[in-house]
């Protein structure tokens, strides 16, 4: 469905060098990305700010022309065949509206029906489905400029789906949304993905989006793919550590060390210690700890994907 081979996008930036002089510098926003995404896959694309996520998405949708490399979406070349491709993909930019600012949502949708040349019956059926899944009815007649961000985003999602796209690209679809709206967007997308008809590619900073939606996770940094696989594979590869939190009867003796674990934090006047388990089992660590210090309570925390990713970003 989507193929990228050595995809590259360079930007020339002019750097100030003296009062009037500017030096040209070439920055590779996307630096040799090769990926294949099959029909029906749900792929999460993450990376720190400026990693090249949006740039990649824009090359896939025909907005930006690649500097070099091959790219094809639905068997089409995005830039030369942009308008044909547009009929087969849906795009949601979290930070930009696709809707008509001064028109009610209902009219925006009607307009999109004409732009995408969708038969009236198909359009009505898809709109009906989105209306019930996304609760659009209460604000369907409100001008877009008066919608809340959460309402607008539900409108944007609907707008991107009314022509029945084969691939849906979402650039930070949950950015700025409150918890309830995030949930609404996620469960809608999960339902959409479950049908298997739509290939979904989303970029996000909110890893909960990925955990909820995507089997496959692509991590990009400095324009290169640094991880491509499941979330579990990411944990395994980056040695995600479980944490052991112990509430102690007496303060932790200074200089205390637990074999195979790292003491990461001591709080409550030494009464609470946190260890990251590196090369030991939980049982061995607990045993060693209980033998050394009287323990009141224990808890073991599974690795958090946020942590893994934070470490991934910090490593560069």
């Amino acid at each position, binding site marked *: 469905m989507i193929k990228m081979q050595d995809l590259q996008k360079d*930007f020339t930036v002019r750097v100030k060098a003296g009062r009037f002089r500017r030096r040209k510098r070439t920055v590779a926003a996307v630096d040799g990305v090769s990926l294949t995404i099959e029909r029906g896959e749900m792929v999460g694309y993450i990376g720190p700010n*400026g990693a090249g996520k*949006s*740039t990649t998405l*824009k090359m896939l*949708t*025909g*907005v*930006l*022309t690649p500097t070099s490399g091959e790219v094809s979406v639905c068997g089409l070349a995005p*830039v030369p065949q*942009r*308008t*044909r491709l*547009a*009929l087969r*993909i849906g*795009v949601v*930019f979290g*930070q*930009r*509206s*696709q809707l*008509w*600012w*001064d*028109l009610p949502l209902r*009219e925006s949708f*009607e*307009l999109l029906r*004409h*732009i*995408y*040349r969708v038969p009236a019956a198909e359009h009505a059926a898809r709109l009906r489905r989105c209306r019930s899944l996304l609760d659009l009815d209460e604000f369907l007649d409100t*001008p877009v400029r008066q919608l809340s961000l959460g309402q607008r985003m539900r409108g944007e999602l609907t707008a991107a789906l009314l022509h029945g796209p084969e691939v849906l690209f979402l*650039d*930070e679809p949950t950015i700025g949304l409150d918890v309830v709206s995030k949930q609404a967007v996620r469960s809608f997308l999960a339902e959409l993905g479950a049908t298997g008809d739509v290939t979904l590619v989303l970029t996000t900073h909110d890893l909960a989006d990925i955990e909820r939606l995507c089997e496959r996770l692509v991590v990009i940094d400095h324009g290169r793919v640094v991880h491509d696989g499941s979330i579990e594979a990411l944990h395994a590869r980056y040695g995600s550590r479980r944490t052991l939190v112990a509430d102690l009867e007496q303060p932790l003796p200074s200089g205390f060390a637990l074999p195979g674990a790292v003491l990461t934090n001591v709080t409550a006047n030494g009464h609470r210690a946190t260890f990251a388990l590196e090369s030991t089992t939980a049982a061995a660590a607990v045993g060693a700890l209980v033998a050394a210090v009287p323990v009141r309570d224990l808890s073991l925390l599974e690795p958090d994907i946020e942590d893994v990713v934070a470490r991934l970003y910090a490593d560069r």
Partner: protein
Amino acid sequence: MGELRAYVALGSAQLRSATSYRASFLVELFGNVGATVFDVLTVLVLFRATPAVGGFSLREAMLIVGLSSAGFALADLTVGNVDRLKTYVRAGTLDAVLVRPLPALPQLLLMDLPVRKALRVVFGFTVLGVAVAANHVDWTPGRVLLVVVTPVAAAVFFGSIFVLSASLAFWWVDSGEIGSAFTYGGRDFTSYPISVYGGWFRNLFAYALGFGFVAYQPALALLGRADPLGLPAWAGFLSPLVAVGAAAIAAAVWRTGIRHYRSTGS
């Protein structure tokens, strides 16, 4: 066919958006006529001081103004707002336009169709009509054709200049008002008989850039006057060719420009 329906839908949506702010729409609609009226008044005032400018009487000069402002107003109404491209490029909002299944330029023009400039067109054509009536043209089929084709060719020519100057923004985001030198400056240039301009300046704008064929040469052909600058009579019929040439250049530059679009960071 389907595309045409899409364009009609886009245009009418823009009309509804514009009229959703009714008071400011009306103010702008009438305020806009003012600008065109002043262009014509300037020429009238000039002729208060002198009976002939560049060898042309007031009546003859009015014909040149009429052709120029009818064509310009038509272009300004349909294509003029393409200069908002620079805001779209700066803000990255062109992205939304590019992911729709229609070519970008017609979409942009319809999304921003400045309905408030409609009365300018009416005014421009009124001036043209009055000037034609005042000049006792010796009508031949060729001249009838010419008086119909010239404002359209002028509109295509000015439209191309609008597109060209807007395209600068693809390479140079802060192109600012540089383009206006050629759009509004070009209109002012074509409002007068080109015989008033000095040597190299005239050669550059009138002949090299083609502004002389927008109104001046066709006006000579309509009036049946020999060109004081020596071009043959058929030069007046070149305006459609010049317009098509300009449109081809503008289209090529636009297409190249779109591929240079950089969008914004997120």
